[in-house]
């Protein structure tokens, strides 16, 4: 399963009706993601990057164009895709273990023994041994997000989508979880698509960074990050990528949009 996970996005277009007017959120998105690739998507608020993830996960099925996962068109949510949101979204009445098991409720692919093994493996993968019977209110934000990652991975999906998963965490926890995510990515070989507004995070994690821009939401360019891992954040090469990407967000590039309030500076 881990070898599959090709995402093919073709001529994707998404409109919202707002007060009778049509708002073009995504316009002609074309992106081809290889199995096991780590893609990060950056862009200012309103560029449609979260909408794109909602379309891939299948929570929103109203769109024009095509999204294929291993050749099958995405029509609904499915256990072949996992998602981690910015908030952990755990069920507070369930323990860590039960929360992770919730992901397996409708898994018909695994035997009972395989389910059991998968839960144990993913608790280990995110380093939560000993916390299996803890309730979410007893966990820190970083630990909760790790449970959410385990819950998203427990079905062994082909693609893991992450919507600003570390945005609400402190810098130390964020860096720690970024390394965890890279380790999981190399161990499991899952295709990863992570949305962030943090350019440094995007460079640190990605094989390719997709830069999006708003009005209408579209891909500005795709940048290959040709750096060996681990990537020291203070290296010269890292800084060069950062400067390069920051240009896409600088005022000089499109002053009229900044002045119109259409683009927010990235945090």
């Amino acid at each position, binding site marked *: 399963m881990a070898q599959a996970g090709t995402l093919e996005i073709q001529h994707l277009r998404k409109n919202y009706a707002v007060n009778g007017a049509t708002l073009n959120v995504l316009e002609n998105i074309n992106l081809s993601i290889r199995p096991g690739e780590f893609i990060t998507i950056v862009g200012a608020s309103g560029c449609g990057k979260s909408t794109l993830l909602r379309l891939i*996960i*299948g*929570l929103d099925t109203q769109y024009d164009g095509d999204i294929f996962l291993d050749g099958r068109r995405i029509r609904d*949510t*499915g*256990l072949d895709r*996992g*998602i981690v*949101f910015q*908030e952990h*979204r755990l*069920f*507070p*009445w*369930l323990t860590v273990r039960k929360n992770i098991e*919730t*992901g397996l*409720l*409708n898994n018909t692919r695994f035997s009972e023994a395989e389910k059991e093994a998968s839960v144990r493996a993913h608790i280990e993968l995110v380093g939560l041994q000993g916390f299996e019977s803890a*309730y979410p*209110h*007893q966990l820190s934000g970083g630990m909760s997000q790790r449970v959410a990652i385990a819950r998203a991975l427990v079905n062994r999906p082909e693609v893991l989508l992450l919507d600003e998963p570390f945005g609400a965490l402190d810098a130390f926890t964020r860096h720690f979880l970024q390394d965890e995510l890279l380790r999981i990515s190399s161990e499991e070989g899952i295709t990863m698509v992570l949305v962030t507004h943090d350019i440094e995070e995007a460079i640190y994690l990605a094989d390719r960074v997709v830069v999006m821009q708003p009005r209408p939401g579209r891909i500005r360019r795709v940048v290959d990050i040709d750096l060996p891992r681990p990537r020291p954040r203070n290296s010269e090469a890292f800084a060069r990528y950062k400067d390069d990407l920051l240009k896409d967000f600088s005022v000089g590039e499109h002053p009229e949009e900044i002045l119109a309030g259409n683009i927010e500076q990235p945090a």
Partner: protein
Amino acid sequence: MSTLRKALPGFPLSGFDYRALVLPVFFVAFWALAHGVGWVDTRLIPSPLGVVKTAWGSIFAEDFLPGLWGSLYRDVSGFVIGGLFGVATGVALGLSRWLDAAFNPALNALKQISLFAWLPLITSWFGYDDGAKILFIAASTFYPVAVNTFEGVRGVTRQHLEVARVFRFSRTQLIFRLLLPAAAPRILTGLQMGLVFAWLATIGSEFLLANWGNGLGNIIIHGREALDVGLVIWGLIIVGIVGSLLNRLARRAESRLLGWRGTA
């Protein structure tokens, strides 16, 4: 009291806050004083000791224990039936916009009618026996449970509903694995209110249908008819005791069920 508790570990009720006794003790002392000094008509207000004697006697009277059990039986039966229907209705209305639009206005209008106003109708349809009383008690329990369950289900966040969709929950899974547990705090609030309403309805129905059946309410009314004020007061006390015991039980069940909330 703290020294006493230290001296006697587990002294009668460990964890019991003895400050709760201040008001009752003060009240009984004042009552005894008022009676002893003769500030009140002793035919209308017996002494505390007189009430205790009446109570002791009544416990061994032939109608007391059957009356207590009768009241409890009707209370619990009505509560269980009304509670189940209340939760089911709340979930159904919370889940379906259509059912909500179709039934909520009517249910809200019906709620404006005092529950006791239904008693004549219920008795003329169902007679005067236990069945009619239990129906009345169930109806009293139903409303707070249904309303709170509805609010609880409506309060389930879009974020959690999306998680259910991502993991492809069936309708049954949605109800039992998300809606009911997420709404549990509100449902239990509703059930606690329902329990209070059920006990009020239990005693109320026995007051209004005093000539039929046997229960604590009947015993109180019979005491009044016999001008036995001591028996009336004892009846009130036992009604209060049973009611607060039921509530204590409910509270304990709640804190056990909602342990996942941590500090609640």
